Structure formats: structure tokens, C-alpha cells
């Protein structure tokens, strides 16, 4: 570790992995509720499990992004973090807020939670992914500002690289667009329209800047390829991200009361959204092929290459599958959407955080790379999780196609619940793949505790 203050990242990474485990456990509960409808009812109704599942995902990724930037920015800026103390305080505030929020979801009826937390002052709750009570939302803003402040101050007193600039820009966008979560007009169409300014402009916009910067950083480190080359790629990739992704928001504006012209804008631009992801794949493999050093951390290289491929498949290919308006007319709001969501989030964001953790954690723990046996276990966990989420995606895709056929295309359309019974075999298969994913994740966690002779720094 070049700078002592980079060590604060460790706290963030541990929390991220812990919450990731929680996310998967709740995912398994929901997966079972799809086929055994009354499982854990009324203790944990589906909507509560889903809130916990998706909110934990968002929070652990944010922990991952923050931890990654506290590691990355000092190294890029060639200076200590502006305030490690602030980073630690922010960590505990965020963790406490997250824990209290999840406990609130689990222990209190949602309507009471809303009443007690001041939702009457400003209605913001009860919208998908933005279910957090008002104080939690304010907390997220404060945490993001503290993070942004700390990182910006660090950058200002040190070297300014393209990677740190892009990362900071991504974080700024994350903070700014989250502010739209406070805007919830009674007009449902406007509500939905600006809801996407948080959800879409995060995951298909500014988060991709963070993703690109983190991937570029790790690739420089593990391949030794010239920074000029890597950073030029980074700029070209994120240019394509914004060029396609901003207007690409239009693919959510087909059927929610917005004008017909969005079907054209949305279809054309979002059809181009796979391009930056494909470039990312080409970029990652190119850099690794042109490597000028053999980094002892082989696991980190695997995660990095995995990110580029799975992000392309999940966000690019599975996104394209249902993005054209005439296709989306039938696919909108089916299991196909869920299939895309799972592979895209795993491929792009879960994997890039795990890539950073894989690269940074050994260094924080005082070695260039983990012992051989630990790395092998880590790589097994990569394959188990990656293959099983791919199968989850395939099963949900199967479920989605049959669902669309029976419910929306057939000349004698069946009702929603009747169709759900017909496709339960897919849900059982998905649940089985989910168990494999959990095994992969447990193996991943175990790999941190494997002892052995580790690779020292050169």
C-alpha cells in the first residue's frame, strides 16, 4: 500500500461483502416465494423481501464504490486521503443508517414506517428502489456529499489524472441525480418520468463512469500498459456511454403516458447502448494481451476480464433484447426485464466492485497478491457465481418468453396468475441456480481466510 490512508477502504469492502451476502439470502427467500407463495408469510411478505433485496444491492454497491475510491484516489493523486477520519465517520453513519432502515423494513409495517419517519412532510417513499424513509434519503445525500468532498479535496492537493477525474464526475452525477428522488408529484406520469432520472441516469449513465474508471485503474495496475493508452480508451468508452445512454432513457418512456416520439428516440439510442460495453470488452482483453508485466494477482485479472464480458452480456445483449419499442410492447414488465436486471447488475456493478476488492484487499493486507490456494478458491467463486447468475438469467428469460406468449400474444390470453402457474418450472430452476450462487459467494468469503505463502511486493 503506497499511502497509509488507503486502508480505510477495508472497512467499506468488508461491509459491502456482508451486505452482499444479505442481498443473496433475501433473493433466495423471494425466489422460493415465487413457487411456494405463502413461504414466510406473513412474517416477511414478498414486497418486504424485495425491498431488502434491492436496497441491499444498491447500498453494498455504494459501499463498494466508496471503498474503491478511497483506495484509488490517493494512489492516483499520489497523496494521502484528505481526511481518513471523515471517511471512517461517514462509514459508520452510512452503515448505521442502512442497518436501521433494513430493520425498519423487516420489523415495522411499511405504512407505519412512513408515518413515523415524516413521509407526510414530503412524500418520497413507496416507489421502486426509492423506498427509503425520508431521513435515510437525506442521509444518503449527506454521505454522498462527504464522500465527494473528501475525494475532491484529495484530488485538488495532488496529481489529477483522467481516471480520478472521471470517477469524481461519476460520483458528482450520482449525488446530483439522486436529488430527483425527493421529487414525487401526484401526476403519475411526471412521477415516473423523473423517477427514471435517478434510476436510469444512475445505472445507464453516471455509474458507468465510475465503472469505467475503476476498471481502467485495475487494468493499468495489473497489465502495466501505458496510462496514455488506457485513459484514451476510457474517454472514448464513456463518451459512447453518455451519447447513447442519456437519450436512451427514452426506452422507459414508451408506455407511461409520454409522447409517441420517445419510441423513436428511445429505440434508436438505446439500441446503441451495447456499443460502449462491447468496447469495454475489447479494451480489457486488448490491455491484458498487451501486458508488460505478469501481475501475481491472477484472480484480479480474472474479475476484470469477467466484468467486461458479463457487463456486455447483461447490460448490452440482454438490454438490447427488449429495448426496441415494438418488442418492448410485448416484453415490458415481464420476467424478461428481471432477467436483464439480474445479469446487468451482476456483470457491470457487482463484478467491478469485486474486481477492485480483489486487487486492493491483498495490498491493504500487506502483500501484492494472496496465496496461490486463496486465489484458486477466489477464482472458483468467480466461476460459480458467474455461471449460476447466467443460468438464473437464462431461466428467467425462458419464463419471460413463455409468459409473453401465454399472456400477451396468444389468441386466448391467460390471466397473470394462471400464467405464473404454467412457468413455475423456470422458477424452480432459477432457485436452484440461486443456491449455487450462494455457495459461490460463501466460497468467496472463505477465500479471505485461506492461509499460505503470499506473494510479497517486488
Amino acid at each position: 500500500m503506497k499511502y497509509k490512508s488507503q486502508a480505510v477502504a477495508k472497512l467499506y469492502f468488508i461491509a459491502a461483502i456482508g451486505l452482499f451476502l444479505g442481498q443473496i439470502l433475501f433473493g433466495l427467500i423471494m425466489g422460493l416465494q415465487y413457487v411456494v407463495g405463502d413461504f414466510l408469510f406473513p412474517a416477511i411478505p414478498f414486497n418486504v423481501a424485495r425491498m431488502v433485496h434491492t436496497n441491499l444491492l444498491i447500498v453494498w454497491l455504494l459501499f463498494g464504490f466508496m471503498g474503491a475510491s478511497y483506495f484509488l484516489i490517493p494512489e492516483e493523486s499520489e497523496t494521502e486521503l484528505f481526511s481518513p477520519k471523515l471517511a471512517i465517520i461517514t462509514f459508520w453513519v452510512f452503515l448505521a443508517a442502512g442497518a436501521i432502515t433494513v430493520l425498519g423494513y423487516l420489523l415495522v409495517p411499511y405504512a407505519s414506517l412512513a408515518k413515523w419517519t415524516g413521509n407526510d412532510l414530503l412524500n418520497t417513499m413507496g416507489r421502486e428502489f426509492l423506498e427509503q424513509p425520508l431521513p435515510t434519503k437525506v442521509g444518503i445525500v449527506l454521505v454522498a456529499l462527504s464522500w465527494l468532498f473528501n475525494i475532491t479535496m484529495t484530488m485538488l492537493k495532488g496529481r489529477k489524472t483522467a481516471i480520478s477525474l472521471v470517477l469524481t464526475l461519476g460520483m458528482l452525477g450520482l449525488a446530483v441525480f439522486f436529488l430527483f428522488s425527493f421529487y414525487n408529484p401526484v401526476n403519475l406520469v411526471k412521477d415516473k418520468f423523473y423517477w427514471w432520472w435517478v434510476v436510469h441516469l444512475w445505472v445507464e449513465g453516471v455509474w458507468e463512469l465510475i465503472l469505467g474508471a475503476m476498471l481502467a485503474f485495475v487494468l493499468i495496475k495489473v497489465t502495466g500498459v501505458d496510462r496514455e493508452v488506457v485513459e484514451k480508451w476510457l474517454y472514448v468508452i464513456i463518451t459512447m456511454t453518455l451519447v447513447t445512454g442519456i437519450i436512451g432513457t427514452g426506452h422507459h418512456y414508451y408506455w407511461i403516458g409520454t409522447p409517441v416520439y420517445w419510441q423513436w428516440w428511445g429505440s434508436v439510442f438505446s439500441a446503441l447502448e451495447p456499443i460502449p460495453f462491447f468496447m469495454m470488452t475489447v479494451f480489457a482483453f486488448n490491455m491484458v494481451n498487451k501486458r508488460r508485466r505478469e501481475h501475481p494477482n491472477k484472480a484480479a485479472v480474472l474479475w476484470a476480464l469477467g466484468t467486461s464480458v458479463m457487463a456486455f452480456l447483461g447490460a448490452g445483449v440482454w438490454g438490447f433484447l427488449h429495448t426496441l419499442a415494438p418488442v418492448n410492447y410485448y416484453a415490458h414488465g415481464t420476467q424478461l426485464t428481471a432477467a436483464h436486471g439480474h445479469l446487468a447488475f451482476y456483470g457491470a456493478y457487482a463484478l467491478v466492485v469485486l474486481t477492485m476488492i480483489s486487487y486492493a484487499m491483498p495490498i491493504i493486507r500487506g502483500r501484492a497478491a494472496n496465496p496461490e490456494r486463496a486465489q484458486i478458491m477466489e477464482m472458483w467463486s468467480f466461476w460459480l457465481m458467474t455461471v449460476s447468475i447466467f443460468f438464473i438469467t437464462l431461466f428467467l428469460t425462458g419464463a419471460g418468453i413463455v409468459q409473453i406468449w401465454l399472456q400477451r400474444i396468444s389468441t386466448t390470453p391467460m390471466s397473470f396468475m394462471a400464467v405464473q402457474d404454467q412457468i413455475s418450472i423456470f422458477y424452480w430452476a432459477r432457485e436452484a441456480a440461486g443456491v449455487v450462487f450462494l455457495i459461490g459467494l460463501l466460497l468467496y468469503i472463505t477465500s479471505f481466510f485461506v492461509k499460505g505463502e503470499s506473494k510479497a511486493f517486488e
Partner: protein
Amino acid sequence: MSATFTKSMARNVFYGGGVFFFLLFLALTFDTMKVLPTRDNSQNITPAVAHGKKLWETNNCIGCHTLLGEGAYFAPELGNVYVRRGPDFIKAWIKGQPTGVPGRRQMPQFNLSDADIDDVVAFLKYASEINTNKWPPNIEG
């Protein structure tokens, strides 16, 4: 990538492209907001609809259902449920939950008053009259 295309050129294209497309997005947004009143059924937003929306949110209905195709995919689409089932069925359904049928998906009992349920129905009626470009494809949602 070719050597004549330098990093600073790439950076300028990034800033230029990002700003241009964001401004274009703002222009489209501006136009959408102008056109919306002809499509969004906002003339029918009454205090009952507003209260119904709030109840929809504070009971986390979106955690299981979709509304105009957005939400969770565990329970039926409700954007057109007013047309599919009618107000009386919806009221009876909400009051009758959970069904308690073994192994079936269960909807919680939200303990809403009759007046509250009327407002939820008013909200669902308003939602069903938004111009959604003929989505969903059929009544089943």
C-alpha cells in the same frame, strides 16, 4: 487506437458529447412537459386520487405489482385493473386478503378503511385513463 487521436482530443469529445446530448435530453423533456396535459389525464386528479396515490405508495404496492409495467413482477399489472375487474371487485379483493390458500402467493391485509379503499380505486381509475400508446397489449396486462 491511432496515435493521431490523442487523449486530450478524446477528453474534449467526451465533454462536448456529454453536454450536447444532455442538452438535447433537456429539450425533449421540455417538449414532453408541454405536451403531457393532453395525455396524462391530469385533469382528473382529485384529492381522492392524490390520497389514493399516497396509500398506494405507503403500502408499498409496487413491491409486488406493476403499474404501467413498472414495479415487481410477482403480482398482476394494476394500470388497467380498473378496466379488467371493475371497482367492486377491487374493493372486495383488498378487503378479503390474505386468502390463506396453502402454497398460493399471499397479499397482506392492509387494514384500510372503506373511504381509503375508495381513494385507492379512484387512483387506479385515474391511472387506467392515462394515454399509454395502447399498452398493455390486452386486458390481462
